[in-house]
């Protein structure tokens, strides 16, 4: 089972936090800080895996990868395969890239609801739901279309961030 997904920037600021078992806010902060400390201490060109059983309990590890300024972190237990998680992360980021076209940190910051939507299509309740990037893009685009349709009825002016996507 996947315990959590965290996206944070290289200064330890969380950009997206999703735990699949409820964690109170303070505990979340503590975990994020500890994970950030661990990640900072990692040298370059080492493996993408870290054992974090001191934070999450027996046999829990995390996979992380840096994309430009962001750390993507998946935390999971022994029922998942490390390398596959790394690739799932890649699929996730590729999907973000497709949805946002050239995704950058600011996209993730300002549209974290959209990022959550995408993540929900991949992982539900800690289980991998879908691994197919194009399927997810299709679904997410449909959701966005629906939302836009609902939006345009109202008097709110057009939202540039969503245009042309």
């Amino acid at each position: 089972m996947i315990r959590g997904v965290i996206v944070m920037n290289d200064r330890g600021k969380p950009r997206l936090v999703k735990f699949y078992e409820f964690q109170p806010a303070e505990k979340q902060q503590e975990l994020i800080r500890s994970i950030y400390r661990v990640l900072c201490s990692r040298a370059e060109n080492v493996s993408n895996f870290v054992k974090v059983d001191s934070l999450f309990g027996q046999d829990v590890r995390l996979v992380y990868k840096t994309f430009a300024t962001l750390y993507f972190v998946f935390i999971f237990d022994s029922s998942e395969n490390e390398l596959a998680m790394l690739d799932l992360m890649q699929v996730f980021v590729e999907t973000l890239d497709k949805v946002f076209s050239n995704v950058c940190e600011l996209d993730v910051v300002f549209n974290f609801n959209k990022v959550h939507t995408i993540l929900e299509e991949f992982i539900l309740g800690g289980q991998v739901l879908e691994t197919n990037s194009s399927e997810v893009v299709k679904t997410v685009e449909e959701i966005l279309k629906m939302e836009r349709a609902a939006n345009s009825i109202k008097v709110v002016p057009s939202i540039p961030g969503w245009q042309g996507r």
Partner: protein
Amino acid sequence: MSSQGGFGQSKEFLDLIKSIGEARSKAEEDRIVLREIDTLKARLSSPNITKFKLKEYLMRLIYVEMLGHDASFGYIHAVKMTHDESLLLKRTGYLAVTLFLNEDHDLIILIVNTIQKDLRSDNYLVVCAALNAVCRLINEETIPAVLPQVVELLGHQKEAVRKKAVMALHRFYQRAPGSVSHLISNFRKRLCDNDPGVMAATLCPLFDLITIDVNSYKDLVVSFVNILKQVAERRLPKSYDYHQMPAPFIQIKLLKILSLLGNGDKKSSEQMYTILGDIMRKCDSASNIGNAVLYESICCVCSIHPNPKLLESAADTISKFLKGDSHNLKYLGIDALGLLIRISPEIAEQHQLAVIDCLEDPDDTLKRKTFDLLYKMTKSSNVEVIVDRMIDYMISINDHHYKTEIASRCVELAEQFAPSNQWFIQTMNKVFEHAGDLVNTKVAHNLMRLIAEGFGEDDNTADSQLRSSAVESYLRIIGEPKLPSTFLQVICWVLGEYGTADGKYSASYITGKLCDAAEAHSTDDTVKAYAVTALMKIYSFEIAAGRKVDMLPECQSLVEELLASHSTDLQQRAYELQAIICLDARAVENIMPMDANCEDIEIDKNLSFLDAYVQESLEKGAQPYIPEDERSGLSTSSNFRSQDHESSTHALRFEAYELPKSSVPPKVPSVLSSSVELVPVHEPSYVADFPQPATSALTVSNSGSSELKLRLDGVQKKWGRPTFSSTTPSTSSSDTFESNNGTTRHESISSTKSKVHDVSYDSRKQQPEISSEKQKLAASLFGGASKSDRKQSYSGQKVSKTNSHGADKSDLIKAASSSDTAAVIPTSQPPPDLLDLGEPTVTSSAPSVDPFKQLEGLLDPTQDTTKLSSSGVSVPNAPDIMSLYADMSLSGQSTTVANPPPNAIETHLAKQPSKGPNVQEFLEKDALVRQVGVTPSGQNPNLFKDLLG
């Protein structure tokens, strides 16, 4: 674009993020966020607020909470928003609620109704949003409220909904297995879903279910193998391909399931051999995901009933992993090696140098994984090297959690495989010194027991040698500052018991040291107690030996201090010490017999020595004792099995006393009782807690009973529980036993000599530039393989001989390092209690049923139906999965022509510059950002760099 900022968010929100991004300290950030919270509080409570403003405030709330601040004042607005009709608002509401609330929150009750309504919605996206919320928010109590609808949705026409419904049901199962146990067959049904996505999602719950109960799912082996075969043959839609691999994630999940189903089941395993072989052959080892599948196949091969051919290809793959440059692959290689050596231990041999490289790698994760591997392959021949390495590493790290783990592993290995007592004590000293507070106190007691009992042989000189060396090392260590409490307890106990035993050190020297220790740790009562008891022992040994006792002045003051101690335990010990010192030699000898801590204590349960006294009392007119169950009037009134000291005429009773918990409770005669049968009185627990004599009144009668806690029966030779390699009656362990006793007999085993030779020769040829140091290490870890290694390992032996502590150890090293004889054997000897390796070679090379035929038979639709229905799956006509997928793949292809296929990300990026709109869009975005005022600062220069760039 005017009032709105970029990214669909308001200027305010952009400003907030900008200012937080530029905050120079945590305090500054907190100030900004608190201000934001105040703003939000004010805004949310204002009466006329548009829904879309509200939505934005909610997003800001989520953001604030993500930064670690309490946003609970806004939860109710999130709950309200889920009631909204608009999909956008509803989804935002659900998102906020799932992030804010846990499933036991009071507000959940307000959402359940909405969820119920949304699950019935015509719009499948609304249903999906509700299902997302269901997975997060429904607890055991609310499951029944939504369960019927979720079950209904399992048959929804949209695959996205079915998929999520499966997951929701799985989540219910995790939360409260009882509530959905009657619905578990639905998972089996969904396995045959037309949509591969739904099928793949179903694998998650099935994996969990199979983990819990393998046997109920054995009938699905055929189906899983079948699906895996179809996936591997690329019968799924092209869109499931990832890096040219057919649906690798599904393959991995299936392999995981198969490894559970095939574990220890020969019949099921045989059905998997063909497809596993195919997958391992076809897998693309150049891509990340290909290696993930390969790794999972290895795990599966190692878990199921062994097949020599598959094991061989697993070994090949592992060596590829280990030889690769990627740390990730090395990590997986080491992990897989750990799995494989359980089945074929000789494989470690070929990879010794790679393993050592990993051990010295700067990557901590890899290092730890390698220690895991070493831990698994430790045996008597290499325990010294491995434990030494572990201790070095343990000293070098700061992570408490891992330090504890590695310390307890060191202890475990040392207990199991220690070649000699001296080595064991030295190792324990090191562990205690550096991680004493982290190890279990049981370990300390084991150590004391070992020193007290030695090897349990009749060899008394060896035992006393051991004790002397322990005493010597402890006297050296005791003065050091910051020793862990547990370790000091051991030291005090050993010094008290054996400090003066060999006559090397005077009593005053040792008592001086003990007093220093007690003073230096004046806050630690346990240490002080141990020290005082040790003093008492030393003095009584002195008295018993007829020497005059001069108490050192610091001793005197220590005792005086303790006489007035707040701890009654310390007080008692001090009083006892005082009392004993005044006694004559004979009495003291009885109280404190020399080296009596291992003696069995005989307890006179009938207390027959009191018979005369009882008789006397009876004659004087006392009432005879009546056992409790024979007393008529009282038996009903007392629920406790109370300990009546009194005969029934007296009203006074002592029901508050608990029954003694220890299995052999020390018994104290109760003076007033008037029969032969006496009731045990619970001893004050502290007496039993410390290895020291109880009150002097007791000791006269039970003089030997002092060391209750340390009496451990049946402990001989080895201390820990045995593992598979030590229990085995193989040549390797018998060899080490021999060397333990001081006789080396390595010539007796050399059967696999020549074979091992060749292997190591090969590996040497491939890597000629390996440093001699590494080879030495390899030789000692893996039992030195080749002739050329031999010389070096001999020199290694010399080095270690100089600092070896006894004949035992050097003998063992000789055994280990005179390479191609003794030490090689352990690696090449398969542990007998694993599955027999000889058998599968015969059966699998000529299986009774051709697995291919079976599979083909299964693919036939009619047969498929019968198979499935007979296996209890309630599908009226099971669809032919294969043909359905074939159809799907056709349609999938046609769609992929319309939308460009999911490219590998590199090519996607490479194309970017040529695509006009993309660049333009990017520039627009950039301009927008600048306009908004969030510019890349010095602190964050890469802010605008594409994530994938």
